């Protein structure tokens, strides 16, 4: 993997995700890999920052239940992902990864965005 992701090691600690049928330890590290493997990055960017093709997913991702429901049933611009191609465990891992992405700096502290 040649991609460099901008979040710290501490942020990779697994989170507990509920609401997918059973409780299990979601892994942000696995989620990072699944995020790329399943093509989330294509529209949402490698740091889930969003762009014209898809909205930002992080920081502050939507609640995991809402997230899961949308991914499974979307009839919007994003195509739905069934459990056959993206398991509940992978989805929970991806959400855990999104939760680790830190808030960006306030644009007012970035000189190039204040010219």
């Amino acid at each position, binding site marked *: 993997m040649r991609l460099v992701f901008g979040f710290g090691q501490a942020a990779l600690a697994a989170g507990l995700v509920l609401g997918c049928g059973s409780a299990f330890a979601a892994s942000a590290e696995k989620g990072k890999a699944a995020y790329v493997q399943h093509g989330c990055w294509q529209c949402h960017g490698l740091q889930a920052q969003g762009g*014209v093709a898809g909205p930002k997913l992080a920081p502050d991702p939507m609640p995991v239940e809402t997230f899961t429901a949308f991914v499974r049933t979307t009839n919007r*611009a994003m195509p739905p992902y069934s459990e056959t191609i993206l398991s509940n465990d992978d989805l929970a891992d991806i959400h855990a990864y999104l939760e680790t992405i830190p808030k960006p700096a306030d644009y007012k502290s970035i000189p190039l965005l204040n010219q």
Partner: protein
Amino acid sequence: MTRKHPRPEVSRRKFLAGVAVAGAATAVTPPAAQAATTASAPPRRPSALPPTMQVAAAETATPKELPRIGGIPGSDFMVDVIKTLDIKYLPSNPASSFRAIHESLINYGGNKMPEFLTCAHEESAVGMAHGYFKIAGKPLMTLCHGTVGLQHAAMAVYNAWCDRVPVIIVGGNDLDAAHRPPGVPTFHSAQDINALVRDFTKWDDTPVSLQHFAQSFVRAYKISMTPPYGPVAMSLDAGLQQEPMRNNGEKLYIPRYVPTSPPQGDSGAVKEAARLLANAQNPVIVVDRAARSENGIRLLVQLAEALQAQVIDQGGRMNFPKTHYLSRPPTAVNNADVIIGLELSDFWATVNAWIDNGEHGIGINTTRIKPETKLISINSSELLTKANYQDFQRFQSVDVSMAADAEATLPALIEAVKAAIPDDRKAAIEKRGEAARKAFAEARERTKQAAALAWDASPVSTARLVMETWAQIKDLDWSLVASEGNVSNWPNRLWPMEKYYHWLGRSGGYGVGYGAPASVGAALANRDLGRFSVSIQSDGDLMYAPGVLWTAARHKIPLLAVMHNNRGYHQEVMHVQRLSNFRNRVASLGGDMGPIGTSIENPDIEYHKLAESMGWWAKGPIKDPAQLAPAIKEAVAVVKSGQPALVNVWTQPR
């Protein structure tokens, strides 16, 4: 049909006596004819004089090689015609089928007006002409090899057609099957080469005499330069180019070019449109290719401010200042009660949405507007009547429709709007403006905060790429000549675009491969105006015909190309992912980042080395955003010295 003759039928002197030299107020006299007709006849001499040295030498010495042509080459006259139209450059890839006019252009014509620019691909040549026009407002001509060259050029011609840009395409073709060389030249000949591009050119012809050429060339120029602008094609017979001019009793002349006035909207329709706009609660102006010039921008500002109407600029051209408080995003149509669309390439998609996520692979159609919203259209494209290619998009019914040029109609519309605004509406209109100022300021804040996301990411975020570039050019008289490969519209969202040359729009037909040649062509026009050219150059676009980099270096065209190298055909990455999802299959990546067949990696292309090999200053690949500023700064200095420079940057997908 032009025929080849083994020998000219008349001498040069006899021919020239037959060429028109004066008299017709609407004609231009060819220079060669002028010179010849003012020469006085030699005095008559007695026949019994002793031979001169020349005569003696002619009778006793080895004869000189006979001239291969017995008169003025027909292609010299063609050059005379071309020169009347003030065409500055001729980007082209050389070919045998136009060798005669090529020779005339560089030797008889002195390689000036037009100057031949050597291209490595016909698509590059037409793409350069496309970009050049958007800056200069004047068309270029290109020469291409009848069948094969025109086929290479075809995609770029289609882009020019969809983008309403004039290009004069002249294709060499050897019509005379009995006399043309066998083998390759015959493979490269056809009965009707123009058929290749007839569906997406405004007009074409195949002249069979020099006079026919003169009329058709001026006509072609005139048609291409009448809104809606568009490319035109001319098949130029090799025999007609190569043979000498012959006296067939006709006096050759060059018709004078007089521009055609662009079509204006009918006065009644203009008045009705003004009435609707003036009485609207929430009028919205949507523009795509509305402004053809700096004056077009000024007129749109006048119209918008008279109504305090929000303006959605779809970006086919630089229509409306991005810094203006009435500039709004596409969603502004949602609450409109009157929408006027000016030169929209797709009115249907302006007021409707199509979502690629329906049952059985059929997209979902939804409306974006309220059912009672009144629609007004001014669009010169309604005057185009080609049917095969579908660039006219879905049909949208409107309430007032004008088949007219928007920029030419705006002065009358502005006056009609001012006259139609009732006194009791003026306070409400002013209040609308105050709300627009607040909404604009809030949107600006949100945009900047969105740009801050992933600011330090590697690969570099597209917002960072765009703003690091901006920081290095902001104090120059800059022109963004192309922005290919979708960088989430950050230049349009963050750069203070106000002048007509700050943004040139896109390809028109969305045929990949436009960005590189169009940016070189636009940079050529900017060079002559002393302006700094910058492009956001995507990887996939550059790989279509990268030879245009060499043309830029060869002809000293300064251009800063900052690469948006996301290492994939990203539109297709997402299409294959979408279909995989629809079919309940995991997309197969085959070791790449995107689905098999959509990535440009393994191996990674070293675009900086590619550019260096063709004479560019180049640096890269840059993956760390902190390294961007010094690299672009160095590149800017190179471009200011008159050379092209490329910075290869690894970027986020969009």
